[in-house]
């Protein structure tokens, strides 16, 4: 009996972890794509996720939209923001030292967070219930319809992304630029346009994740992007930064580990678990789970 209930709890945490992890995966995809293409840890990415949540919030409350139109508009809004940020803050620094770009990214992130506090007020807001939450009980394991919605939406978005990257011309160009930007430019690819496109897709995914989190946790605030942003980055590193399937895998693993820690140890150690994974992976396989080791040449 003891073992059975333990097993049941384990499965329950797995279900929770996978739905949380698919959100991390969506954010991690943006990190990994941007890193893959311009080698920048885009610290502002978590805040674009926050903006997505707020756009979704205003679409559903003020404009009384249904879930899916709100999701699309939030994605579009986040994508536009992402492209604008890239154009205004990162593009002028293409040739600057890497640390300057990193600091700019931190600056943009602070700007969005505290600008958000100034404009949107620091009070958390309650996300309306746009999707009725039905609880299903499958053999003692509780699965909410919202969890299924999150998983389904993320899966669809990931399939679309994989299609774009692998099958379309733009996707081919993206892969070429991330492989070698100079060679790609010589082949006639407009590198700046491809970078903008990458930011648009990555930010759109983050925006979608924001709306999904709003629906799931019912509460959004201007600083909500900090922790998920960093954890999603950890997820991207875990899977192998720059590798798209790696981000998905890393996100899911992060979600599961976090759910297991909060379920079996203590929720106060949840964040430490995420960072412990990061340190372990960096020490033993810095290229990530799906990455290949590249030897440094003199």
């Amino acid at each position, binding site marked *: 009996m003891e073992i059975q209930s333990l097993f049941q709890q384990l499965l329950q945490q797995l279900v929770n972890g996978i739905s949380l992890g698919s959100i991390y995966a969506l954010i991690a995809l943006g990190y990994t794509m941007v890193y893959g293409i311009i080698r920048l840890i885009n610290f502002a990415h978590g805040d674009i996720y926050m903006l997505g949540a707020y756009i979704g919030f205003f679409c559903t409350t003020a404009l009384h939209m249904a879930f899916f139109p709100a999701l699309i508009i939030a994605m579009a809004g986040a994508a536009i923001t992402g492209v604008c940020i890239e154009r205004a803050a990162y593009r002028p*620094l293409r040739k600057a030292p890497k640390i300057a770009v990193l600091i700019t990214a931190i600056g943009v992130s602070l700007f969005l967070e505290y600008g958000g506090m*100034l404009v949107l007020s620091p009070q958390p807001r309650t996300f309306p219930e746009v999707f009725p939450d039905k609880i299903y009980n499958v053999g003692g394991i509780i699965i909410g319809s919202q969890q299924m919605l999150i998983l389904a939406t993320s899966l669809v978005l990931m399939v679309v992304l994989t299609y774009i990257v692998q099958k379309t011309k733009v996707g081919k160009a993206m892969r070429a630029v991330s492989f070698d930007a100079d060679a790609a430019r010589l082949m006639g690819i407009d590198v700046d346009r491809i970078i903008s496109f990458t930011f648009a897709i990555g930010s759109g995914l983050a925006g979608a994740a924001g709306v999904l989190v709003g629906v799931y946790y019912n509460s959004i605030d201007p600083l909500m992007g900090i922790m998920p942003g*960093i954890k999603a980055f950890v997820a991207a590193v875990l899977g192998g930064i720059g590798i798209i399937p790696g981000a998905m895998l890393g996100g899911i693993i992060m979600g599961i580990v976090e759910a297991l820690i909060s379920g079996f140890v203590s929720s106060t150690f949840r964040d430490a678990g995420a960072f412990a994974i*990061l340190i372990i992976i960096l020490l033993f396989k810095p290229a990530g789970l799906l990455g290949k080791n590249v030897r440094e040449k003199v």
Partner: protein
Amino acid sequence: MREKRKEDLMIFAGCLAVYAAVQTLMATGVIGAYWERTIVYLCIYIILATSLNLINGITGQFSIGHAGFMAVGAYASAVLTVKFGLPYLLAIVVGGAAAGLLGFVIGLPTLRLSGDYLAIATLGLGEIIRITILNIPYIGGASGLMGIPKYTNFTWAFFIMLFVLFFIKNFVNSTHGRACISIRENEIAAEAMGINTTKYKVLAFTLGASFAGVAGALFSHYTYIAHPASFTFMQSFNILTMVVLGGLGSMSGSIIGAILLMWVSAFFASWPELRMVIYSLVLILLMLYRPQGLLGDKELSLKMFGRLGGGQRGTSQGN
């Protein structure tokens, strides 16, 4: 060599004069309580910024977990004074040693990483330190360690800052400092020249961490409370920003960066959200128009430092 010593003495004399002036102004009440606080914080942040500069700027290892070491120093020293009633100076030394020891233990494995990976690892480690502290009831857990005696005043902060500045300055000008700079310039070439790169990276990291611990000790004995929320990665970013703003690898740059940012936050303190927006805009604009930082060129700034002296510049603009 003798000329160098003479120069150092002159800088030291200048610093004493600045100290006397500021202390008199504080005693006569020309500098009010609010700006007195700011100046003490400024001294603490100068220690933090120059010690981070030792790791990031001089040795070229990109660490963004400095707040974690600051936390270790803050808590270790506070435990000594609160729980055991030991003297303050001993508490500061132990705080610095504890942070340095942790820096050594952490640095040994992580400094094999480089660039972004090291950055993200140190960020993670800083957070792990904070979360661990959060979960130890003996030192207050989430509500913080309260009732810390207020031992820090301007004199303590100033002279410890002076000690740290001279220490780092002499370290950078020593054989060891040169070795660290060579690692920054080209790690593979440095290794080929027979420099034990791991040793020097860990050495710089340990030193930087222990000075952060000293700053943490000063900090917790000024605010009465050591709270985990003071040591988040926002704090690390804050210190990093000071260093980069002033110019990586330039010690006087770190001091100026610390002064500038402290001034911005003190000036806009009544509008906290607007303050952060302005802070971030300053950051973005500076990076867009001067990505190498205010003092920019590292060689020039080092020479400038030799001429003008870090400590003197720092405090003469601080009041």
